């Protein structure tokens, strides 16, 4: 394993902050896959997944070095200051590391860091996996999110990731400044993984995604282990019309009654919104359609319009 610093930042206290890359190098000319985690400092599942992947590859190098055919680069903690504070944004710069990229990137330090990171990924990857957890409000099943214009290239890869769901959605302005969008525009297939919830680590979920990543590395020809690729599940593939979002009609505390991953019938109870000051249930949220509950609100404090759940219809969604 080679360790490299992509972007050292000198802090006012004199200690450097570094974006580190760990590389497992195979034969030149073979495929190169990069894993990226920690763009948001409160999304820890991806960081942990990188740890698990590094651990796996170190073990593989020791016991079966010839199994590494291609190259794996891992960027396990690209926003170290935010990760250290466990906040989505870097506490000093208050900038979102995944909203910095475009034609004109500005001169702020986060913008400079993102440009260096993007250059590094572009120059050393044939495929990128960008690992995210959800925000503080929602918990998600393991899913790959794909912008429609990139679906032809990405769906065949996403099918190999052991995800529960592949969600193809339209482009919108909010994605244009992200790593996923800019790498895909640069013709480097990039899968954006969304799994779990921020500030937590779900070991079982990480096992599932790790198996998917190892399977993907086999599929891409980066790995050829004697034990072969792990089995992966067939994810549900959904397009925008097949995803139903349930939003709160009232403010209050949301208490979930359904379970993430549950197959629901139309009318099943998702949870209720209660008015804590008056001791009243102000809303009973129900499933508008049958399907897979793949997003469920975790944060009880709820404002009108807040997302409570997302349901994917399985009937038309199987790839």
């Amino acid at each position: 394993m080679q360790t490299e610093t992509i972007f050292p930042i000198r802090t006012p206290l004199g200690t450097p902050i570094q974006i580190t890359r760990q590389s497992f190098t195979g034969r030149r000319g073979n495929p190169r896959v990069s894993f990226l985690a920690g763009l948001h400092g409160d999304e820890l599942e991806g960081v942990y997944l990188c740890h698990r992947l590094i651990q796996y590859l170190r073990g593989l190098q020791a016991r079966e070095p010839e199994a590494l055919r291609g190259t794996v680069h891992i960027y396990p903690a690209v926003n170290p200051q935010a990760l250290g504070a466990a906040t989505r944004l870097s506490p000093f710069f208050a900038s979102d590391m995944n909203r910095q990229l475009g034609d004109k990137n500005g001169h702020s330090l986060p913008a400079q860091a993102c440009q260096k990171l993007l250059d590094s990924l572009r120059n050393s990857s044939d495929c990128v996996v960008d690992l995210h957890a959800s925000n503080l409000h929602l918990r998600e099943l393991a899913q790959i999110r794909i912008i429609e214009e990139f679906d032809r290239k990405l769906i065949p890869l996403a099918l190999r990731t052991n995800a529960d769901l592949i969600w193809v959605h339209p482009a919108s302005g909010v994605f244009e400044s992200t790593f996923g969008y800019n790498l895909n525009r640069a013709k480097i297939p990039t899968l954006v993984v969304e799994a779990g919830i921020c500030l937590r680590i779900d070991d079982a979920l990480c096992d599932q995604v790790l198996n998917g990543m190892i399977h993907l590395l086999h599929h891409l020809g980066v790995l050829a282990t004697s034990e072969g690729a792990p089995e992966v599940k067939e994810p549900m593939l959904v397009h925008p019309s097949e995803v139903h979002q349930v939003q709160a009609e009232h403010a209050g505390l949301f208490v979930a009654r359904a379970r993430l991953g549950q197959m629901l019938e139309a009318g099943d109870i998702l949870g209720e919104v209660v008015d804590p000051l008056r001791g009243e249930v102000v809303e009973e949220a129900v499933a508008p359609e049958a399907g897979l509950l793949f997003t469920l609100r975790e944060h009880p404090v709820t404002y009108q319009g807040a997302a409570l759940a997302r349901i994917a219809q399985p009937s038309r969604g199987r790839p």
Partner: protein
Amino acid sequence: MKETILTLPTPFGEPLELVKFHWEGGKNGDSLSLVSGLHGDHLNGLFVNQRLIRFLDQVAEGRNPDYQLAGRVQIFPVVNLHALAAGQSAWPFDNLDMDLAFPGSLGGEATERAAGAVRRHSSDSTFGLLLKSAATHYEDAPHVQCFHPDRWERKLAAHLGLGIVREIPAPPTFRLQLLYQWIVNEVTGYALSAGRPGIVDTGMCDRLFSGIVAFMVKTGLLKYSGGSSEPKPSVYYRTRDENTVLSPCAGWFLPEVAPGACLKQGERLGEIRDLQSGETLEEILAPKDGALVTLRCYPVIYEGEPVATLLEERKPGIWPF
């Protein structure tokens, strides 16, 4: 007239109300929207808008006989209600920069709903002015920002009387900003930036107030019986005229100039000292002649962070011409 345009219920108390103030007079079909408080700590814009609300109430009630309303004006003084109440730039509950929440939505989360309401109410205006402060850690000299303005828009911007009209490069997130939403809806939109977050600078607010009143007179939204006056000359700067000065090292940045200063190449902007020993590490010099539009005001600085933005004047640049 004060009007509630959106009610945001809260889980633990009374709902918050997003309001606009509006006035109408005369037969001028044009209209102006003034927006402040997208960020809860951008206080200069809010301070200017409350002065404008009082001024326009006086005009509408005939208590300021020099002025008469001739068009439609609406003011949205605080858009990010939760952030203002929290005393922070963004609402801590969603941490969403509201100027990245546009076009917003009618049925989304609270921040998106507020953004959607303001966009909907302002996108049929003839003119839009967004009042803001510099980014966190910086202070701006009062200036006008515009995006790809045509010749008429450039000349009109000079009537805001701030001396600096600056074409801004579109940031990667520009499509999520209010100014972009105005532009695609054919609203002649400008952002007026002045001062720093968390501070009201009354001198800067006076300049903004006078400039906005002059703008309303120039656009025919207000009639003024006191005679006409030429605007203070302004300089128009293109994006290529911008020079960003980066800090060569980390430590204290101690400025020796103020935003708005006209600097000569080689003139000192300040110096960087070691945070703990106080040793002077670098002096920061102006790389070219130029107007200092943005200066770092938060003294602790990382290596490579911007210290200042200078706008280089190229001839011919003085307006009106």
